[in-house]
């Protein structure tokens, strides 16, 4: 794991308070502090015997390294030039097919999203927590809480967050929170229609009804004073009927000067496939908000259906009218956002397939980045915190004496002094997310896994699941390796100072 290099390098200063491993800008007093415990011995000072002795002691580690690091690297390079069974030489064939598949663009894009977003945000959060925890009481407890997620395996974290982001508000915490807020602002109607599940208000219209303005339903024929109107709805389930307390439908009787009518559930248990007829075993739909419309669409008056589904518009006067069942009745309330879905945050649907693959930012990527921040923010905080404790307080004091505000001190003194630590965290995290894998495998549901896949996941899928192709998988591993090299070199240089 990539966590080890900075962790180990920075551990001594955290314990001793002396920044042996933390590179500090030249010229600061600590860099030349006599308390530095290790001084590097000039290499090659001893004779042949000396060298032999050290080589002998190095041998076990060297052989170990050769066996578990160098050999696999070489074998991977070799396999990337061979076919799926690693027996026939195919030259650069695997690389060609890697770059000719459409999914490689998606993999690269996701790697780019991770590398661009995650390391900077996690370093920022780490810095924020480190600076803030320095100043509060109970800072140890706070730090422990922030740091805690790192003790979970990535798989466990992924499963936790998969549940947190679940689509069903009864399961997923995030959707439950959004639902509470949303239903408070926008309460659902008595007969909710779940649009995101493919239901439509128009599909409820069964007899005497058609789609009306903005999500409402409207009677298809016109009525005048003294007429009766029967409006049938389908797709209302038994549980809803219980909730609203629906009772047997009573066909309306005409009344002079008024338009009377009935809204009923057009599903008869005794005649399950017959529509447009009020049977004795059908029920009326209570609580529906209705509006009486003139021919030009302006509203005259409104009413609500009673327990039997009956309604009455009194003294309507002359003219012909239509009855509208208001859209409000069907408002669905919040039914969940598919946080782990592959819908894009950037508007790319009008673009070509390749451009889409290149420019889409699937929502699931962001959800996973949030989960990964939760895992790693504590680590960044601890490393940066260690850097903070080793800062030369005199400089801060001097700044304060000179009248600098806390903000200025942070920007002009703390940040520059901390910069080397921040860069180490940043680069470590870049390496970390370049090979991001386990969180995607375990957190993205199968249906969006293809859109959330990265190079490392593609490497795993080609090499270890289903039909195994070690050549393709190795080629991906080599590409990934080449991508990590710059970050690795930069980190090594910094560590050496």
């Amino acid at each position, binding site marked *: 794991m990539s966590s080890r290099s900075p962790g180990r390098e920075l551990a001594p200063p955290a314990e001793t308070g002396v920044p042996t491993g933390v590179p500090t800008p030249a010229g600061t007093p600590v860099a030349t502090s006599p308390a530095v415990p290790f001084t590097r011995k000039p290499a090659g000072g001893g004779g042949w015997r000396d060298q032999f002795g050290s080589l002998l002691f190095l041998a076990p580690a060297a052989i170990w390294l050769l066996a578990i690091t160098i050999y696999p690297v070489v074998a991977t390079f070799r396999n990337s030039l061979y076919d799926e069974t690693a027996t026939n030489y195919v030259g650069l064939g695997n690389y060609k097919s890697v770059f000719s598949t459409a999914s490689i663009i998606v993999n690269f894009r996701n790697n780019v999203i991770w590398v661009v977003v995650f390391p900077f945000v996690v370093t920022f959060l780490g810095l924020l927590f480190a600076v803030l925890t320095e100043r509060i009481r109970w800072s140890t407890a706070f730090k422990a809480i922030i740091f805690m997620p790192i003790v979970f395996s990535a798989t466990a974290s992924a499963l936790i967050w998969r549940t947190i982001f679940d689509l069903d508000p009864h399961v997923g915490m995030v959707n439950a929170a959004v639902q509470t807020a949303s239903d408070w602002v926008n309460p659902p109607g008595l007969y909710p229609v779940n649009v995101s*599940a493919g239901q439509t208000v128009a599909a409820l219209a069964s007899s005497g009804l058609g789609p009306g303005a903005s999500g409402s339903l409207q009677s298809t024929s016109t009525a005048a004073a003294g007429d009766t109107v029967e409006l049938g709805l389908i797709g209302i389930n*038994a549980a809803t009927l219980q909730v609203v307390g629906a009772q047997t439908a009573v066909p309306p009787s005409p009344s002079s000067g008024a338009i009377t009518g009935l809204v009923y559930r057009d599903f008869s248990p005794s005649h399950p496939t017959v529509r447009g007829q009020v049977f004795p075993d059908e029920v009326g739909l209570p609580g529906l908000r209705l509006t009486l419309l003139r021919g030009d669409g302006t509203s005259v008056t409104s009413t609500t259906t009673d327990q039997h589904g009956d309604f009455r518009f009194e003294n309507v006067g002359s003219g012909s009218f239509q009855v509208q069942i208001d859209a409000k009745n069907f408002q669905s309330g919040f039914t969940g956002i*598919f946080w782990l879905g592959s819908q894009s945050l950037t508007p790319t649907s009008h673009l070509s397939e390749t451009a889409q693959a290149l420019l889409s930012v699937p929502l699931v990527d962001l959800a996973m980045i949030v989960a990964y921040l939760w895992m790693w923010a504590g680590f960044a905080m601890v490393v940066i915190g260690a850097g903070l404790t080793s800062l030369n307080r005199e400089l801060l004091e001097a700044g304060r004496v000179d009248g600098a505000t806390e903000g200025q001190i942070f920007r002009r003194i703390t940040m520059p002094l901390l910069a080397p630590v921040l860069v180490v965290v940043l680069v470590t995290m870049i390496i970390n997310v370049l090979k991001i894998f386990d969180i995607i495998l375990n957190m993205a549901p199968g*249906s969006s896994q293809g859109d959330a896949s990265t190079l490392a996941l593609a490497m795993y899928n080609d090499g270890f699941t289903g*039909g195994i192709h070690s050549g393709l998988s190795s080629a991906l591993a080599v590409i990934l390796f080449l991508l990590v090299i710059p970050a690795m070199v930069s980190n090594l240089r910094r560590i050496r100072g």
Partner: protein
Amino acid sequence: MKPRILTFAIVGGLLLAACGTSNAPTSSSVQGGSVSLWAEWSSGEQAAFTAALTPFESQNGVTVNYSSKGSNIDTVLAAAVAGGAPPDVALIPDPGTLQTLAKQGKITDLTSILGGLSSNYGSAWNTLGSYNGKLYGVWFKGANKNTIWYNPAEFAAASISSPPKTWEELIQDVNTLKAAGVTPFSLCTDVGWPVADFWQNVYLKTAGADKYNALAAHSVKWTDPTVTTAFTTMAQLVGTPSNLAGGLQGSLSNAYPACVDKVFPKAGAQPQAAMVFEGDFVATEITGNSKNYTPGTTGSGGASCTTDPSKTPCYNFFDFPAPSANSANSAAIQGAGDVAVMLKDTPQSEALIKYLAGPDAAAIWAHLGGFASPNKKVPASAYPDPVSKGIAQALVGASSFVFSLDDLQGTWEKNMWQDLLDYLKNPSSSSISSIEATMDQQATAGLGH
């Protein structure tokens, strides 16, 4: 020949006696010795299987050395055969392995050993256990993926008295359910294999078993009109999001067995859909959700089925229907199974194979539950409930039996699953033709032809 076979069957349990009268050369009662037997079953299944073998051991004095090899029995067996130390008898879950072993001459031709016993199985099964016209295997256990599970209380809410027999009736029932406000279907399609199982059933029912096997071998192209028919037929059901619990998005976020839970919820929840498709293993999920679920169409104690899982809920299944124009395919079944093959010809292994081909062992396991036999002679009364009986009867009566097509696709199986998911996301006819073209390319690349 017929009357003698019938006598055989009636004698049933007294298989030994039957063996005595058969024309097999070495079958007069074996006494003593041992036989080594490999199969994939472990834990509960192993206990049931060994219980099924107990009468054989006590009647013959033969010790059966059973060894469970888990799900990678194919690999283990291949290694043992190559190493020259195979077991006497093995039960393998893959007809392809049977073909390979028969081709290599590593398993024994059972035609004369079994004699009349082979008529315990329908021709679909004997064909599946044969290589070059000779019978090499006995299909001891079968699994049925031809099952659509439904909540009888939800059907009752829509006044559907009997489950659909044809695809057209299914679509009609779907509309009736929707009119009654019941969401018809629940899918677990966060990954591709459940879509594949579903699609394969539709293909089998519309195109028939011969085409199915040809497509599996890619001698029928994925751009074939029969493939298009299967896609458009399936779209009648899955192409309308309101047919699915949670719509398309909900289906894509459901991991198996979440879709089963939506039809057969745990206590405290209400069903959100009426039907769910998957193989016979769904029954375990349902009864795992609540012990209250009673198989069949009446709740426990004869009460009527309730949607409330804490009262008297029920579960039942109906056979995946074929369109009425393709009714010839209605008894074609997709599934899986375990076939007994003989790797060493000893009197003990012959006796064991004959015992497995008879109804006794299967009847014992059937009674213990979680088992279905394609053997005609296993009495229906051996099954503890109407659902397991129905599953077994479908296996027995199968006009043809095919294995899961995706598992035969090698390296491009994953691509196939992804393509089918893409289809589910957009089942329009223009998308179907481009998906077919992609699939055919991938099949060509993956299978090398």
